[in-house]
């Protein structure tokens, strides 16, 4: 590739971050630092039952014994955990707004600006939203309509108050607080998140979604999401994330737990667009997230789809534990790293039940000085008679200063298992670009078209509204002046 076209492609990648604004609201913030008193304070603010405070404290004490993981293919300055504030919430007149009319209009405006209107009459029919602003959920829509079907969709804090038995039963059952450093930290200090319960045999009539927004400076966001699909039920859940542009790095250490009982199906889609930092790598979110689902019964199915375009560093491995016989796990991923972004992402598929199946489709796009690693584990336990896995890892390189890395781990303890792994690495070629431009497309549209084509297998797994959003997002991420 000639150096001038190289330059052109890189110029195309200069990204604009539309969600980078700050909302001026009065904040209630806990001073920086972490100790048992801070945890007691968070728990007290949320009026939590004793079991939860105990659990948080156990998690904190365990966390103190742990070391930050260093095995990921990412580099960053050590994080000072005492310099972070662990709770930030917009001040509200009452404990919690009863309806949208009581929600600070500035908050509603924030979500509107992000394209997420919270007033039900204005929003996309068929999508219910829980809006999480820094440490708290500010609104959840369509709650009543969902309740008619027996579906619980609310903030985690509300679930703790109204359905403590479900929380106690399932919290930490998929990701125990001992699981890893960031999961332990989250367990100690998590503030809010979404909670979903779908009763047996119910097919959730609309998409459920959570929109996470980090606003406050110098705070971490530690949300926790728990989704339970009871026997024979179905739910599709979407999450979106953005944050203001700031020069400091901010930590986001979330935990998501999914439980699918016999015959249940959970489809979990993420479009992650946290602030990625600037061209020089200043600022951006450290996205250190633990996501895991358990297929607890026969024929349960959990499907993860993620489009990761934001964050300075992404460290996440949405996984599925296939306990039930004939259960199915899927992971579809697009990860884009540009400028100085780093991503180490992939999945774990742990086959325990008989005739369990898993599919992994990973598409990594590296541009600028971005580093993109796929790390995936396929483990077939001795008990997993007839288990099958198919893994496909494709990397697309744009420019010659970026990197793509693949770390597949395969452990097979049952001879009847079939495991397939395919991997490719390609570059956007000058020939492809010229071909599309000769048909009248601007250079940036041509790059965008090639990248979208590369991601097609993943995008087709996204719910319609999100697929459009994801395509637009990749378009914006690759937008810029032609050099």
């Amino acid at each position, binding site marked *: 590739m*000639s150096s*001038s*076209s190289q330059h052109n492609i890189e110029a195309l990648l200069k990204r604009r971050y539309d969600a980078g604004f700050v909302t001026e609201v009065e904040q209630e913030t806990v001073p920086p630092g972490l100790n048992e008193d801070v945890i007691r304070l968070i728990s007290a603010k949320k009026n939590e039952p004793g079991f939860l405070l105990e659990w948080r404290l156990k998690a904190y004490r365990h966390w103190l014994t742990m070391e930050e993981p260093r095995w990921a293919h990412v580099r960053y300055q050590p994080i000072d955990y005492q310099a972070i504030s662990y709770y930030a919430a917009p001040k509200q007149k009452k404990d919690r707004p009863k309806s949208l009319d009581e929600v600070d209009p500035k908050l509603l405006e924030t979500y509107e600006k992000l394209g997420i209107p919270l007033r039900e009459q204005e929003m996309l029919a068929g999508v219910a939203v829980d809006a999480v602003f820094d440490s708290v959920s500010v609104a959840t829509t369509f709650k009543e309509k969902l309740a008619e079907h027996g579906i619980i969709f609310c903030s985690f804090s509300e679930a703790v108050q109204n359905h403590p038995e479900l929380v106690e039963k399932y919290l930490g059952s998929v990701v125990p607080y001992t699981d890893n450093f960031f999961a332990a930290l989250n367990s100690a200090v998590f503030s809010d998140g979404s909670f979903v319960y779908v009763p047996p045999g119910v097919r959730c009539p609309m998409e459920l979604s959570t929109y996470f927004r980090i606003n406050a400076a110098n705070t971490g966001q530690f949300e926790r999401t728990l989704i339970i699909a009871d026997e024979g039920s179905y739910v599709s859940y979407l999450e979106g994330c953005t944050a203001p542009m700031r020069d400091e790095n901010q930590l986001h250490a979330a935990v998501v737990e999914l439980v699918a009982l016999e015959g249940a199906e959970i489809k979990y889609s993420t479009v992650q667009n946290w602030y990625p930092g600037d061209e020089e790598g200043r600022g951006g979110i450290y996205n250190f997230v633990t996501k895991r689902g358990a297929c607890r019964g026969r024929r349960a199915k959990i499907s993860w789809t993620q489009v990761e375009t934001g964050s300075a560093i992404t460290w996440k491995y949405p996984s599925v534990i296939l306990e039930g016989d004939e259960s199915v796990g899927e992971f579809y991923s697009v990860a884009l790293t540009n400028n100085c972004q780093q991503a180490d992402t992939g999945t774990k598929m742990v086959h325990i039940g008989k005739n369990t199946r898993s599919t992994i489709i990973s598409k990594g796009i590296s541009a600028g000085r971005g580093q993109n690693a796929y790390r995936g584990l396929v483990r077939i336990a001795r008990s997993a008679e007839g288990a099958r896995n198919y893994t496909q890892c494709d990397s697309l390189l744009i420019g010659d200063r970026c990197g793509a890395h693949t770390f597949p781990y395969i452990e097979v303890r049952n001879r009847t298992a079939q495991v397939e792994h395919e991997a490719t690495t390609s570059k956007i*070629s*000058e*020939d*492809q670009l*010229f*071909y*599309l*431009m*000769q*048909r*009248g*497309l*601007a*250079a940036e*549209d041509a790059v965008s*078209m*090639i990248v*979208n*084509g*590369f*991601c*097609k*297998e993943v995008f087709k797994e996204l719910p319609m509204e999100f697929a459009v959003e994801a395509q637009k997002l990749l378009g914006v991420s690759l937008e810029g002046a*032609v050099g």
Partner: protein
Amino acid sequence: MLLEIRNLHVSVEGKPILRGIDLAVAAGEVHAIMGPNGSGKSTLANVLAGREGYEVTGGEVLYRGRNLLEMPPEERAREGIFLAFQYPVEVPGVSNIYLLKAAVNAVRKHRGLPELDAMDFLKLVREKLRLVQMDEQFLYRSVNEGFSGGEKKRNEVLQMAVLEPTLGILDETDSGLDIDALRIVSEGVNSLRSPERAFLVVTHYQRLLNYIVPDRVHVLAGGRIIRSGDRTLALELEERGYGWLLDEAARGQAAGQAAS
């Protein structure tokens, strides 16, 4: 004049490839560019379409009176220049119909026309599909991915038919085609011939010119047009090969040098 090339010199990586091309193409005409391998035929096609990596060291190209060489490739396309590629590239995951729609609308936007809606667009494409005798299924396959040589060339002609260019440049569109595909491709091109539209047909063989009958034939060798004539020139080349013309050109050049 639709296209005027004046004393065009082009180098690739410092090596001169085109060494003074003069060519004028009027609307409604079909010009064939013939010549032995390495004579600069494809370079000429690529330079006109604006591919990178070609350095214009002298001369000028006017397209509808405008300086073509100043225009970026996508603008040339939108202004009606279409290059049917010798080696069309694969674009995995992008369907033919998606590319066609994006291309049509890019051109329409440039011309200040509204985007075609899905129904009108599909109607237009279906009509053109018949022209190249392709099945509608073809539209939903990824651009050129897994296409046979013949399918790729037919796809180029389909795109050309949909985009309705003012100047169509066919770069060795006949290479690798069997006789049936050649006929289909040629009929597609012929159906596009019109008083407003011109074609530059780059080919190594006269065979294609039995189907697409040119108004003028130019022989390119060593980066220059060494002979121009009507279609009988192509037939003569078919019979005698390029050797005699090259010899003549060499003698002429030697005589010219001796005289000066």
